[in-house]
């Protein structure tokens, strides 16, 4: 029997697995503008990311194929993050010593621009705080999912994939 990959035993990708199965954009590309990264390593019958991409940057040979993003073609428009039914697309953008991570946020409350939020890694651990810089509310989102962009220390860019909004 084949070895079961870690991500299917545990339910999350490690950064090493992300590099191995998905591949990361170059530092140069990350500094140019936001770039979409699909955390979708498993073949499932699903194609909206490919269908919605305005620059055909999402490559998929057949409807069950794993999406591969051509990072050079990606213009960072976030439509794939909005539409992805698996909430598996994220965008990352490096600015100076900060990173901006764009992610879906389908839980309440939806944070406001400027609000400080608690950063959660792929297993829900609190790893720091960040500031919300953009919010696309549900009604403006192409995929009925609110998406937020959060600014954080650059070293957390590949760790943080959710936030918690704490209000008094």
């Amino acid at each position, binding site marked *: 029997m084949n070895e079961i990959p870690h991500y299917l035993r545990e339910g*999350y990708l490690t950064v090493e697995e992300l590099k191995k199965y998905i591949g990361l954009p170059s530092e140069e590309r990350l500094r140019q503008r936001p770039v979409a990264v699909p955390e979708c390593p498993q*073949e499932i019958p699903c*194609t909206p990311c490919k269908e919605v991409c305005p620059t055909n940057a999402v490559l998929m040979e057949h409807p069950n194929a794993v999406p591969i993003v051509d990072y050079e073609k990606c213009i960072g428009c976030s439509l794939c993050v909005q539409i992805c039914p698996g*909430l598996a697309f994220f965008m990352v953008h490096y600015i100076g010593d900060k990173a901006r991570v764009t992610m879906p946020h389908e*839980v*309440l409350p939806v944070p406001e621009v400027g609000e400080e939020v608690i950063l959660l890694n792929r297993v829900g651990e609190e790893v720091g705080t960040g500031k919300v810089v953009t919010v696309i509310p549900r009604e403006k989102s192409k995929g*009925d999912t609110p998406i937020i962009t959060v600014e954080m220390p650059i070293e957390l860019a590949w760790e943080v994939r959710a936030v918690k909004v704490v209000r008094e």
Partner: protein
Amino acid sequence: MRFTEHPILDFERVRGREVTIYFEGKPIKAYEGETIATALHAAGIRIFQHSTKKHRPRGLFCAIGKCSSCLMKVNGIPNVRTCITLVEEGMQIERQDEKPVLPKTSKPPKWKEPPRIEADVVVIGGGPAGMMAAINASDAGAKVVLLDENPMLGGQLVKQTHKFFGKREQFAGVRGIKIAEILSEELKKRDIEVFLETSAIMLLQDGDEKLVVGVRKNKELVEFKGKTVVVATGAMERMIPFENNDLPGVYGAGAIQTLMNTYGVKPGDRVLIVGAGNVGLILAYQLYQAGVKVEAIVEAMPKIGGYFVHAAKVRRLGIPILTRHTILRAEGKEKVERAVVAQLDENWNVVPGSEKVFEVDVIALAVGLRPSIELLHQIGCQIKYVPELGGHVVIRDSRMETTIKGIFVAGDSAEIEEATTAMLEGKIAGISAALAAGVASPGWLKEVEKTQRELEEFRSGPFGRKVLEGLKKVVVE
């Protein structure tokens, strides 16, 4: 236990006029449009009956009218399925604690000819498969009538808050609740007659035609006569054996979705989910969205069975998934107070000393489904046991016609799969039923073939393999 704030759903919009019902004589607030079981849950009442022999407490389990766990006495009449019966002002609800008997004052109904509804195609079941069958049979030229025993159309779509997979033309990226709305609208546009709260209790051959005997609102007999019939009766949640698995608070995953996503009632405060297939994973996310704490998901297999992306969604919200773990027992006096789980070794034996106790008031079973084939069985369709398809299923051809000419099947009642394939199968069955009824032009065969190709494409990945293996055993030409 009611909640209003939700990131996706708007309950204020669906809750009807406030009414009062009475549980054991005590008044309870309820809303028109919700079921008796929902109103009782909102009032914190979980014990609906006691078993007749050992007097064990019982509560809601499936919430879609398929098990018998929620039977209660309503206005003196026993054995009422409170999970699909809507509240009415002044209703008197009682626990059913003894062998049910009809009140002495009740008389058998007077015989009269039931109303008979005639159509080309009769569709049983208003879920994704049934609605697609009805829409497409109608488009192909058939007069269609659809019946469903639930109070609303949509089947299990009405509680699916997540976005669907597949292609965009197959509703990918659209939430299940929205798909239910879209398909209901399409039914309306086509003037398809719909009978809700109507249970199909018999499926009969009547000369060259078919007769479906229905009971509306638990009382009124209605007959549906059609040249052909599409059976899209869905599936029933599975139960697994463990100590105290009958305690109130042990629910099928779908029952929790019904309470929470259809009616805005929390099932409890802390939940353990058994099963990390798509249903269990999606349920965990939905519970989090509703503000309910999920302590863990346990899965007996060594890996996550559902889509990885669904697992990743719940992991990043801090919900643990324990693979190679199973539930040993539920504990609690009259309802679930704790769950005891343990690790399994490679031979599926419990690892000594690995027991963990979770303080939970809800145990959600997401351990699979079995097709609801009762009507197909009763009329005599050939049946085969195929584990890959969820259990006993009917033999059919590639156009979803069973071994009885004119009887078609689609969706989970054909094999356990998912809503996108159910919709595609519904389309195939609906058009084929219209063709078999002799009302569709042969040109519609092209549409059937196109849909068959779409289905084939959808199933061509690793997640379709098991179903394809199973279909080899039941699809005949």
